């Protein structure tokens, strides 16, 4: 389950930053720092996750998507609920 979510997150991230090398992504360092993402990218990332997983992510929860680990954890908790 977690590996499926991780793969979905990486796919959505790849769509937002196609030039990024996601194989070297540190799981506990914010995406913004590693990939130079801005608010438009974060919005598109949330749109991509919504399209892939059907999860409606409130804007107030965007900070919970900051790192790969945090993102997978958040999505797992939303799926469980």
């Amino acid at each position, binding site marked *: 389950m977690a590996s499926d979510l991780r793969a979905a997150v990486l796919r959505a991230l790849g769509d937002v*930053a196609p030039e990024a090398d996601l194989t070297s992504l540190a799981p506990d360092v914010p995406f913004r720092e590693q990939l130079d993402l801005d*608010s438009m990218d974060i*919005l598109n990332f949330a749109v991509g996750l919504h399209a892939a997983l059907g999860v409606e992510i409130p804007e107030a929860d965007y900070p919970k998507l900051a790192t790969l680990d945090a993102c997978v954890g958040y999505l797992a908790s939303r799926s469980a609920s």
Partner: protein
Amino acid sequence: MPILGADMTAGTLVAWRKQPGDRVARGDIIAEVETEKGLIDVEVFVSGVLERILVEPGATVPTGTALAVIREDAPVVAPVPAATAPVAAAVVSAPARGERVRVSPLARKLAATLGVDPTTLRGTGAGGAVTREDVERAAARGREPVAVAGPPPAARPRMDVARMRATIAAAMARSKREIPHYYVGHTIDLHRALGWLADENTRRPVPERLLAGVLLLRAVALALREVPELNAVWRAGQVEPRTEVNVGVAISLRGGGLVAPALHDADRRPLDELMRAFRDLVQRARSGGLRSSELSDATITVTSLGEQGVESVLGIVYPPQVAIVGFGRIAERPWVVDGAVVPRPVVTATLSADHRVSDGHRGGLFLAAVERLLQAPERL
């Protein structure tokens, strides 16, 4: 070959999207060209039938070169792109051997500094004299000859960052050299705007949410109605007011460099439509696929470095435009409201403008209008 920036000199035809005999309508994408700004979709400005292709894929040609011939629905034959031919074929070929080349003293000095041989250039000045602009263009494009056929390009050519850097350098140096800038700034309380935005986004599904940036763009576009002299271009020594408000949005590219494509008619499009166009523009700027009109039509530029933590940005006007608006980061600050100090999200808006066209007084009124508009976000 459309002129897609103040200092663009040439482009490479990558592919034709239409073939001889095809019908084309105004606004159709007819070809793809590669420039220092990346891969650009070229639109047509007339409707008719594509009669003949003049430039084959892989060829690099100067701006102003006709790419094809379209037989218009009206009985007029117009080259493509008809709207962007003025600089024309002045740089198509070098002077014939033995021909004496006139070079202005300033151009000769600049050529020596930049390592350009002015005798190899076709001048665009009076009597065919080589001007400093000719030298700058030659320096920007390096020693690469124009109007030569190159190898077939890859399907999606990568942007040449060094070439883009040279183009930005030429445009910015020209701006600082020729445009007498003035600068004004104004700190704006965004309490109402961000409160409205948060409520609005709570009700919206993810794909329809708005960003604070689009409120700022819309406020700028509407404020230009009150101070229209900032929405103009400067050409041939005089100002040309623009009736359409096409806001160029500075977008940084992660590989380096930036582009500032236009959001057309930003003052006339509802906020939702503007947001969709904004998202689409950013996505295409970063992945390739901007349209020629988006790179040539901006009448003012907006730049924001707030997400990089910058307090305020004093931009350099992008010629031939006459103004650029900057936004810094939105930060919580102590703010005095009705005699009490309260925390408020504020942003510093700045205006850099051409003093030949407007004065600081009008610039101040413009920023005041931006502030006033942001206090009623539901009306944006």
